[in-house]
């Protein structure tokens, strides 16, 4: 490691002739959030102790009194502060990597973590183009959300605890993306799951929120099982578990489409499905909205839930070798995208709409990485991080404001129900504009970020369907149609959200409306930055065809396929495998027409959906939640999320509970406890029998003594 004083850019390759580029303090990027966690954690404990002391003394802890320096000011600086430092350090490294022609990942080993038999796992981090993109998103978006949280959480008694958890989350997320082997990634994988649980149940005194945290944790366990099994299988095959060792030999060790590689990748898929909330393990994510809204933005939209996509891209060469698994990935992705989009159509809770929208967009990313468009998957992951974080933070600002209004008009309405909002445009103009930009981005309207990333995924699906040796060409055609349809649904439900929230008549009532307000500066500045990224973020990966057409201003858009070239060292092995086995991809969609034509069609169609929806819904008078009629027919099914939760409850949770009860009442208390008690009682009975021999009469003892001597003599003598 270089000394701390050298936090400056280094000319690459000055000292180490082996590596083309020397990273600047990469370990510190991970350690900074951990340091923040330690400090904020200590402050949280101090605050908790003071509060407990106050309660014991019969007083109430005055959160805004003398303790404010500890419980508020310090976390405000430490929490976002360490993130800012980590972000700056990441930028320094990013710029350094930009300047270097790096083809191999840079691996830094710190110590030997597990050494047993022929297994040797080093505590090592890996910096390559993929982890760098993820680190930029995590620390960059993470920092903005930390800043937003300062405003959003300022009146919460758990303020220092909140920042402790948030810092810890960033630490684990960085471990996840920077680890140089699957076990290291698994630490991060489990760690972010833990933080997700802690933050969903952040307001744990509300039992519903606490059990939402448990649900997320338990559902994720199912996926984690797949992760472990995949690691074990890889170890059996390679005798090692680090990326460099596995990916280097994968092409020669595995048979294309063979059973082992298919099993490994399907196990990885199970893990990814759990973490990224895909069908059938998507049920935890909408409930995860019980956490504070910035947490939903950071963990359950921008970063943690995309870990599954990262896992697939990281293992891209493995997935490319298993066409069946890839088809399953894409299938799960497109089905999830469609399914979640339909549910989002009829949700009334603003965060539930966004949650299902997140599930749906994650489905798009899975579709992308499933059809082998790994870059497009990461690209959509990135643009989604921008606009979905923005949407969630905007929703947070809205909820904050509505809560305020409802509080002052003494209504106990649901502050997250969009039927209780309306007309906020006049009160919160900045939030309004920012959220419209994000909506246009997610709806896939040119030239916003979402258009380029989503369009590339859909286009690649179509191209896969028409590839020379596409293994499941018909299936991919279906995927392509479903993806296009889902894109239209996206445009509809997002416009519905915007219209119900910001347009029409304000439904909070006159007393409440007086108290509606724009978000404070710490909240709207992150919104503005994210809005900028949502507009321009898509320009970093415009395909050449699009760029040279009218959609790219005939070559006027800067950067071109930058992300594609940037990630090339990571994905080239996978692309090599695909090219060898699939042949050339199609240059036309299944229904004919090129990339530009379909790009135009989809953006025009999405824009039409937005305009028509806005016009139709804008006229409709929305009743407030308490006066609204129960939904009927299909919208009732959609409102109840296709009854998936009920299905699981009936067929999974209840049988498990019943079985547990049988195991408890009969197997445990009767059979197992019975056996243990039997042994105990038997020992006691034998002891009692033996004690009868102790008569206390010396003659008896003498008799047995003599008898014994005679027996021994008999044995020796005869």
């Amino acid at each position, binding site marked *: 490691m270089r000394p701390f004083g050298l936090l400056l850019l280094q000319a690459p390759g000055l000292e180490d002739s082996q590596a083309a580029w020397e990273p600047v303090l990469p370990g510190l990027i991970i350690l900074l959030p951990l340091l923040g966690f330690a400090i904020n954690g200590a402050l949280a404990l101090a605050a908790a102790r003071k509060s407990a002391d106050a309660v014991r003394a019969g007083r109430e802890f005055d959160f805004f009194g003398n303790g404010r320096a500890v419980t508020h000011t310090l976390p405000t600086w430490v929490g976002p502060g360490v993130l800012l430092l980590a972000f700056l350090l990441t930028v320094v490294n990013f710029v350094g990597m930009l300047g270097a022609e790096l083809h191999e990942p840079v691996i830094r080993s710190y110590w030997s973590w597990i050494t047993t038999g022929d297994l040797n796992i080093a505590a090592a981090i890996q910096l390559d183009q993929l982890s760098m993109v993820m680190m930029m998103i995590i620390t960059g978006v993470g920092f903005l959300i930390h800043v937003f949280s300062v405003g959003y959480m300022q009146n919460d008694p758990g303020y220092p605890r909140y920042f402790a958890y948030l810092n810890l989350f960033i630490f684990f997320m960085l471990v996840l993306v920077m680890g140089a082997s699957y076990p290291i990634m698994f630490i991060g994988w489990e760690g972010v799951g833990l933080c997700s649980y802690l933050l969903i149940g952040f307001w744990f005194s509300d039992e519903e929120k606490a059990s939402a945290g448990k649900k997320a944790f338990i559902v994720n366990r199912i996926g984690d099982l797949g992760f472990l099994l995949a690691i074990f299988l890889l170890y059996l095959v390679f005798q090692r578990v680090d990326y460099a060792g596995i990916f280097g030999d994968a092409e020669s060790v595995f048979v294309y489409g063979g059973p082992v590689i298919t099993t490994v990748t399907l196990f990885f898929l199970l893990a990814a499905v759990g973490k990224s909330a895909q069908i059938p393990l998507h049920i935890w994510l909408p409930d995860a909205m019980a956490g504070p809204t910035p947490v939903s933005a950071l963990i359950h939209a921008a970063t943690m839930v995309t870990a599954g996509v990262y896992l697939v891209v990281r293992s891209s060469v493995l997935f490319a070798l298993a066409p069946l698994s890839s088809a399953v990935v894409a299938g799960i992705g497109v089905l999830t995208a469609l399914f979640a989009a339909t549910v989002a159509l009829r949700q009334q809770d603003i965060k539930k709409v966004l949650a299902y929208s997140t599930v749906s967009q994650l489905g798009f990313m899975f579709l992308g990485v499933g059809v082998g468009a790994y870059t497009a998957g990461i690209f959509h992951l990135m643009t989604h991080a921008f606009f979905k974080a923005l949407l969630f933070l905007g929703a947070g600002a809205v909820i904050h404001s509505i809560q305020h209004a409802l509080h002052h008009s003494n209504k106990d309405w649901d502050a997250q129900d969009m039927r209780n909002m309306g007309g906020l445009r006049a009160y919160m103009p900045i939030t309004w504009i920012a959220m419209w930009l994000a909506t246009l981005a997610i709806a896939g309207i040119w030239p916003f970020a979402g258009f380029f990333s989503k369009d590339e995924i859909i286009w690649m699906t179509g191209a896969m369907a028409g590839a020379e040796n596409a293994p499941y060409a018909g299936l991919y055609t279906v995927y392509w149609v479903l993806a296009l349809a889902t894109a239209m649904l996206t445009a509809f439900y997002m416009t519905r959200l915007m219209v119900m929230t910001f347009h029409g008549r304000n439904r909070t009532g006159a007393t409440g409306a007086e108290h509606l307000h724009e978000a404070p500066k710490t909240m709207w500045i992150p919104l503005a930055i994210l809005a900028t990224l949502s507009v321009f973020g898509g320009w970093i990966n415009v395909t050449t065809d699009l760029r040279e057409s009218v959609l790219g201003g005939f070559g006027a858009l800067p950067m071109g396929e930058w992300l594609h070239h940037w990630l090339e060292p990571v994905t080239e092995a996978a692309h090599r495998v695909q090219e060898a086995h699939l042949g050339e991809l199609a240059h036309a969609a299944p229904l004919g027409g090129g990339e530009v034509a379909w790009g135009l069609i989809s953006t025009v169609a999405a824009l039409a959906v937005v305009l028509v929806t806005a016009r139709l819904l804008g006229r409709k008078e929305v009743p407030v939640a308490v006066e609204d009629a129960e939904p009927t027919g299909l919208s009732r099914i959609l409102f109840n999320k296709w009854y998936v939760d009920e299905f699981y409850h009936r067929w999974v949770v209840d049988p498990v509970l019943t079985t547990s009860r049988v195991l408890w009442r009969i197997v445990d208390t009767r059979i197992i406890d019975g056996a243990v008690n039997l042994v105990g009682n038997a020992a006691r009975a034998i002891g009692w029998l033996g004690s009868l021999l102790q008569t206390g009469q010396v*003659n008896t003892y003498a008799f047995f003594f003599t008898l014994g001597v005679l027996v021994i003599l008999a044995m020796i003598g005869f």
Partner: protein
Amino acid sequence: MLAESLVLAGLIFVIGTLGVIVRRNAVIMFLCIELQLNAVNLTFVAFSRYVGIEGQVFVFFVMAVAAAEAAVGLAIIISIFRHYETVNVDSFTRLKW
């Protein structure tokens, strides 16, 4: 001679053993133990005629130990008698479970 001596010694030893087992009086039991010891002494003496002088030497040791044992044992019996006012061993059950 040896056979007769050994039969006599065996008889005395069995009488002593049975006495220890069946009698309840501590003094009688004590006497029976002495009988057993002396039966062994007789065996030693009988064998020493054929084997060597060592057997007779052993007898002196046994008599010395028996004398010491008699002193200690009788002292115990007397002190127990003072406590219980009986020498019937059936009565001495305080240490029984």
